[in-house]
């Protein structure tokens, strides 16, 4: 905006003085907040540990290579468990998420006042809590093992799949619903013939996407005892067997990259 400056000539400036002052004040507040947070966060930090981090890094790095390739033989079975946790967990999550999504979507929910907020709360709680925390909780209830991992992954997936699915349901073309309703179809028939065909590709995409994320998350669930390759990781870390840790990291990396490739291919084929 043009602002009159000296010599009677208007000079073009991007913002008015007031907007600039407000901007500066905002940045000042932001920097102050950052400094405050930094001080609070680091008040118990032992700086000598931080300063010798390069040596530590070099030390750990030298212990980590070469990876212990022979350890790979003992990792296949945990890897199979990990993949099962991811797949069965995704299955459990989606099976629960579908009805929740239909209850949460504004155009399909049977009751806007009671069931919709409840379904949204379920989605929000499931989304807020990381699968590792679900696992922490479930291990103390179900006991350590693959089952706790499956349920943890399943619980975390409800929110993710439910949220994306209910948004997909809300975006459907209402014309198809009206057309099916006009034939005298019942509520379930409307869902079956008007809604499901419209959301099925999105649903398949969401499920595969979540599966890919779940493979990633399942690899570390063992850290809290919920089965899979993370158990081996925890065991190796506990005895500081860094060559084994490297081996596990490499295997996790390969698995994650592979599952991402598969999921990208499948989603590309569907959508």
């Amino acid at each position, binding site marked *: 905006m043009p602002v009159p400056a000296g010599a009677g000539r208007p000079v073009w400036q991007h913002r008015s003085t007031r907007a600039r002052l407000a901007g500066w004040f905002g940045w000042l507040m932001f920097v102050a907040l950052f400094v405050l947070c930094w001080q609070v966060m680091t008040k118990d930090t*032992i700086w000598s540990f931080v300063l010798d981090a390069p040596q530590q890094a070099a030390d750990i790095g030298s212990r980590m290579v070469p990876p212990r390739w022979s350890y790979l033989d003992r990792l296949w079975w945990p890897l199979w468990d990990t993949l099962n946790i991811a797949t069965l967990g995704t299955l459990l999550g989606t099976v629960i998420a579908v009805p929740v999504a239909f209850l949460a979507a504004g155009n399909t929910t049977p009751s806007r006042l009671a069931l919709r907020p409840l379904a949204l709360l379920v989605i929000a709680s499931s989304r807020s809590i990381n699968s590792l925390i679900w696992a922490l909780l479930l291990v103390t209830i179900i006991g350590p093992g693959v089952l706790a991992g499956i349920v943890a992954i399943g619980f975390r997936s409800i929110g993710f799949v439910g949220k994306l699915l209910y948004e997909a349901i809300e975006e459907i073309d209402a014309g198809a619903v009206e057309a099916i309703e006009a034939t005298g179809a019942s509520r379930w028939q409307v869902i079956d013939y008007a809604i499901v065909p419209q959301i099925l590709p999105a649903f398949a995409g969401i499920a595969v996407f979540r599966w890919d994320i779940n493979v990633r998350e399942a690899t570390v669930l063992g*850290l809290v005892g919920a089965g899979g390759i993370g158990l081996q990781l925890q065991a190796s870390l506990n005895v500081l067997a860094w060559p084994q840790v490297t081996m596990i990291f490499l295997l996790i990396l390969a698995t994650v990259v592979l599952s991402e490739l598969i999921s990208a291919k499948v989603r590309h084929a569907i959508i």
Partner: protein
Amino acid sequence: MSGAIARHWRRKPLLIASRPLRWALYGGALVYLAVAVSSVHVNWLRLYDGLPRGWRFVQGFLAPNFLARWEDILIGFQESLTMTVTATAVGILLAIPVGLGAARNISPLPVYLVCRFIIAAARALQEIIVAILFVAMFGFGPFAGFLTLSFTTIGFLAKLLAEDIEDIDEAQAEAIRATGAGWWQLVNYAIQPQVMPRLIGIGLYRIDINFRESAVIGIVGAGGIGATLNTAMERYEYDSAAAILMVIIAIVMLCEYGSGHIRRRLL
């Protein structure tokens, strides 16, 4: 068919058109399911033993105890929140140059490759594994958590920013170039106005993610509320654990609501 009215209508398959492929997929899925389920060992006795504990957790949720460990909870959240703020700020600050470098349309090939490598490295391993390494190097506490979150923020933000820059409207960049602008001026006048709204949106989303992750990395010793939660669970203090979880859920929902509000106002 012609002439007579078809009496039967067979519904078309919804997703996979080829019949053999469909049945093969169904069959394969069934076989996998059978094998996978049978390989899951469930200790039913342990499960039965755990049921009262599960019930106690539900009770804990109905009557959360915020007071018994309020000092630990307060310190935990203080660490988590400060970690989130500092890590997001530093992460965004470092992600911007990396993101600019990783956009093929404005950076030379060597810079592009280096920046893409940084992004790939930061995205390859999940937060918790990065946290394990940083805790081993920098010692226990929120500083390791701060480094973890900053590092993963760089990968996430720089990738999305680079993709966004590659998708910009070239006409504007062309117009600025035609005025004889240098590289910095190009970035400042042609690219920054186009990607800023989305950068703000992604940044706000990342605050949300960083807070959620800060609740997890404490499990491996990187400070924050995760450590408090882990302790509460290990002591079977489900009422305190439920209180912590409820505060986490409340903060996440507040973050989501707040960032949605800011995004609606800014964009």
